[in-house]
């Protein structure tokens, strides 16, 4: 879709206000990152934190447009692997991943899904990336909901970047911190006072 460079959106009847120009890929990425349809592949302990994440206090997925769970892999584009994957479970996970439509992303929720955790034994898969590609790893056993939100924002950043061909790892931009700004302001004013 690289040929079509600019899209103009016409807003208002007069046509004098409300223009936005963007690349089509960027527009698609923007739309995708705010409407992730998740497939929760919940197996273990992390499922408890996953429940807490969707509960009113953290409201972790609705705020990012990822609220609606789809229990059919064909309708979803973000696979949450929540919990330990045993060797017995591995073919199931693999098949579910293969059933999902492109574009698709995978989020490894917790240490067990990321690397097997402290279950270094005969029955546990040492990380889902041994079986399927994985986009974001959220560490923690189980991760706190805040950590998962961080991971979700990383994924959004990754979606934006990949649309423009940027292969660098995603980052979560530091947010405005009023306290820190206040301190810097004070420092600045005191320095000015000295001078």
């Amino acid at each position, binding site marked *: 879709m690289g040929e079509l460079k600019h899209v103009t959106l016409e807003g208002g009847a007069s046509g004098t206000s409300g223009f936005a120009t963007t690349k089509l890929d960027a527009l698609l990425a923007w739309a995708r990152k705010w409407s992730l349809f998740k497939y929760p592949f919940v197996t273990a302990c992390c499922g408890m934190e996953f429940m807490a994440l969707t*509960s009113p206090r953290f409201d972790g997925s609705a705020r990012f447009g990822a609220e609606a769970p789809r229990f059919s892999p064909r309708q979803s584009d973000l696979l949450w692997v929540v919990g330990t994957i045993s060797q017995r479970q591995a073919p199931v996970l693999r098949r579910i991943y293969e059933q999902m439509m492109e574009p698709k992303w995978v989020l490894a929720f917790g240490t067990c899904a990321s690397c097997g955790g402290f279950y270094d034994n005969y029955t546990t898969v040492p990380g889902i990336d041994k079986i399927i590609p994985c986009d974001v790893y959220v560490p923690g056993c189980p991760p706190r909901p805040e950590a998962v939100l961080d991971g979700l924002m990383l994924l959004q950043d990754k979606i934006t970047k990949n649309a423009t061909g940027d292969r660098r790892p995603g980052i979560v931009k530091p947010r405005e911190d009023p306290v820190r700004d206040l301190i810097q302001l004070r420092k600045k004013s005191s320095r000015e006072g000295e001078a």
Partner: protein
Amino acid sequence: MEPIDLDLDENELELPSEPMHLNMGPSHPAMHGTVRIVLELSGETIVKSDVQIGYLHRGFEKMCERGTWTQVFPYVDRLNYVSPMLNNVGYALAVEKMCDIEVPERCQWYRMILGELARISDHLTCNGAMAMELGAFTPFLWYIKAREMVWDILEEETGARLTHSFGRIGGMANPPTPALKSMCREAIPAILKIVEEGEGMLLKNRIFIDRLENIGKISGPDAIALSWTGPCLRSTGVAYDVRKAHPYLKYDEVDFDVPVGTCGDNMDRFLVRLGEIRQSCRIILQACDRMADEGPVNVDDPRVILPPKQDVYTTIEATIQHFKLVMEGAKVPKGEVYSYTEGGNGELGYYLVSDGSGTPHRVRIRPPCFPITQGLSDLINGAMLSDIVPTFGSLNMIGGECDH
């Protein structure tokens, strides 16, 4: 116009009634991701079912044979991950039984408070998830809100929201915080209020009641023969609760009732769990009144308890003791023990075999869900397909515990 089936006899009119095979799970929203049920259906009625577990087998028992006795605690946490504190306490009691240690009184009350908080969290999750699977999303959000209150207390005490690893052989990792009692006294009325609101939403709902009442029935003797314990057994009217029948910690000194059901259907299991939340609240309030504000939490026994940090840095004896306890582990006397407590789902037993060294020879957990899940097949045979969801939800099968 003549009917087209004029020259057909009765049998040919029927569609061929071959049984249909259906595979439910392991990745099914109501199967908690860890159970697969292979069903043979005649229409919508279940003729035969085969419950297959093991999708969350993580080798708990093998892993425990590698570290010290204390290093078992994190693994124990992740067995029943809805009430980790009860598992911690159960395992600590089992090892203490072998070492012949009794923890100080303050610690016993402390363990009771934390354990009962975990039980509340367990039952709230079970009932909430069960309601959610039947389509009632609001009570689920209500119960999770109440669970967050419980977790706030546990986080303040232990530092972790879910997997605390807080128990130690001969005590706890840290003494109670000064705010514990006031936090409990504030949170419990709020939790009870939420429980009542959730109950009000569900128990007046015709759809919810119809899907629960007289579904998944089991009689008391059947449940005993299947080795059921805990809320599922009590829902059949058998009042067997380890806390009453064989009191441990200080359960013989507090006043609480054992809620029992009458006919052992899904509704009874739901109501027994709600009743137990209220009883747990009573226990916590009494324990808060009885627990001393000052006093030792850990037992004064150098075999198992680490010396104070101050001494480790200043005296050679304490340094050596610390080193030996960490590197070799606490030496547990040779022998075998079976210790049992009331977990979230029933009798949580630990069968430990020690060869006298710092590493367990065998750690065997008796998971209460395991026999309960075994009975699922009997409950759903002959029922309708849609009855699986409430029946399975009310059994509260926890994957980590059931599959070890």
